[in-house]
């Protein structure tokens, strides 16, 4: 009962914060439109890149063009969700630590992790989820895909797990700023780190690529974030990989929370 009421309380809070940030965003409609334009351009560039590539080859690491297009759409939607919910919040954490403004947030009677990582929703990146979904649908049509409830259910579950895994990694990266003080480049760091999730894991081949692929699948499982949902939908429904993704999600959410709390214990207020 206590857990349920706590959950609904946080859900209500999240809803309130979402409405507040949406109103803020709509106060600067021009800026919102430009942000969306940038994302449209970026998606256009990604598609143009793969059009150029697939004009010269029929497969990349065993993925044909429609399958790869689905992968790109899945990455774009998942990354959009991460950016929308967490990236801006985590990016501000370093500045909160540096200036000591974190004190104010820590005093509030709400879970620190929730308040720090979920207090703002970046509605400017919300259309990415839609754009990524459109690309996925186009790819499925191009591939002549037939609806399969099991694949759809697995995709939805692993997509949610992928988002949670990415969030766990982002939270860990964010926590480091307590010790490094100025981790202002978190946005860039995240972009660099998440580049590992941007490609099919089959590209990790060869004498040094394969061990790297194994490392980033089983030890630091960033490779499963997009690969497993995309694979489940358009290629192989791999049971063990799905199980690994779900296990990794639980472990990483737990570990990242512990790490974040440990980081907060090391925080020394910079304010007077």
């Amino acid at each position, binding site marked *: 009962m206590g857990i349920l009421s706590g959950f609904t309380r946080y859900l209500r809070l999240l809803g309130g914060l979402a409405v507040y940030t949406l109103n803020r965003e709509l106060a600067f409609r*021009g800026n919102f439109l*430009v942000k969306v334009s*940038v994302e449209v*351009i*970026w998606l256009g560039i990604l598609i143009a890149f793969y059009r150029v590539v697939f004009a010269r*080859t029929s497969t990349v*690491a065993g993925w044909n063009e429609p399958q790869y297009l689905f992968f790109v759409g899945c990455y774009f939607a998942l990354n959009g969700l991460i950016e929308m919910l967490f990236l801006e919040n985590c990016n501000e954490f370093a500045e909160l630590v540096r200036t000591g403004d974190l004190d104010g947030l820590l005093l509030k009677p709400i879970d620190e992790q929730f308040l720090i990582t979920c207090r703002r929703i970046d509605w400017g990146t919300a259309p990415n989820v839609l754009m990524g979904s459109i690309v996925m649908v186009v790819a499925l049509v191009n591939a002549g895909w037939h609806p399969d409830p099991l694949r759809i259910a697995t995709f939805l579950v692993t997509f949610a797990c992928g988002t949670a895994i990415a969030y766990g990694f982002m939270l860990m990266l964010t926590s480091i700023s307590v010790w490094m003080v*100025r981790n202002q480049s978190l946005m860039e760091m995240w972009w660099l780190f998440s*580049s590992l999730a941007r490609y099919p894991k089959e*590209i990790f081949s060869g004498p040094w690529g394969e061990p790297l692929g194994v490392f980033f699948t089983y030890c630091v499982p960033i490779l499963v974030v997009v690969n497993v949902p995309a694979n489940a939908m358009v290629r192989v429904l791999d049971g063990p990989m799905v199980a690994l993704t779900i296990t990794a999600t639980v472990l990483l959410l737990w570990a990242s929370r512990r790490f974040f709390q440990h980081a907060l214990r090391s925080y020394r207020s910079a304010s007077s």
Partner: protein
Amino acid sequence: MTPLETLETQDSAEAGSTALPPQHRYAKYLAIFRVSLAERMTYRGDFFLATIFRFLPMVTTILLWQAIYEGAGKMQSEMAGFRYRDMIAYLLLTHISRMFSSMPNLAGGIARDVREGTLKRYLLQPMDMIGYLLAYRVAHKAAYIVTSFIPYALLFFVCRGFFDGLPDPATLGAYAISLILAFLVGFFFEASVGMVGFWFLEVTSLLYIVMTVNFFISGQMLPLDLLPEPWAGLLKFLPFQYMAYFPAAVFLGKIQGTALWFYLLGELLWAVFFMVLARVLFRLGLRRYSAFGG
């Protein structure tokens, strides 16, 4: 005396004299360089972590292109004049190009100075704003190049198999010139974008669009030669190719003879064009500037 106090003393001294010898006139920019270098090295942990992370996209890029060439069955042949080895070498070299031509926060900083009124600090002191920003940027680039020298040297050593060795001295000379000009094109291009802040208070959005488009059309994702015509030819006439594609292509010997001189001249002209543009926009902008802020 701190470096800032030294700078202040030099400026005060210069303010009272209109005919200082050149070595004194440039001493203040040397001081800016020293202060900026010290500032850059303050947050070393953050800096080194970011440097390590910067190698991750290179790793995935190498693996992706390996998969593309294998998929096309062209591991032993060429794609638009690029063998697999050339492609990886090219993409590694674009990082060196960007090391010189990328200017993080330059345009945004200028626009912020205009918006918040802090630009007046350049107007009240006997210092040219563009000159100050240039010295500051040279310092940051120097710090970045020095601190990332070892990781980059290690990377290029590990990836030496993708290269056919060092090019001949003439090509190396042309490469060095192309990089210096890439820095100038990048600096004055971004400065020009920042000057737009005199007319539109918020340029961040414009900057995002420019940077996103630039990522593709400067050749950071793939060599421009892979694009179909007329796009490949068109993009080689624009200034953006000098910020990534051109220096890398020069190093690999893809551009030689008359074409090399032609494009080097083009790079110089674009650098001069943006230098003049930034200066003109600054002058015109100052007429509109109201020095808002405290």
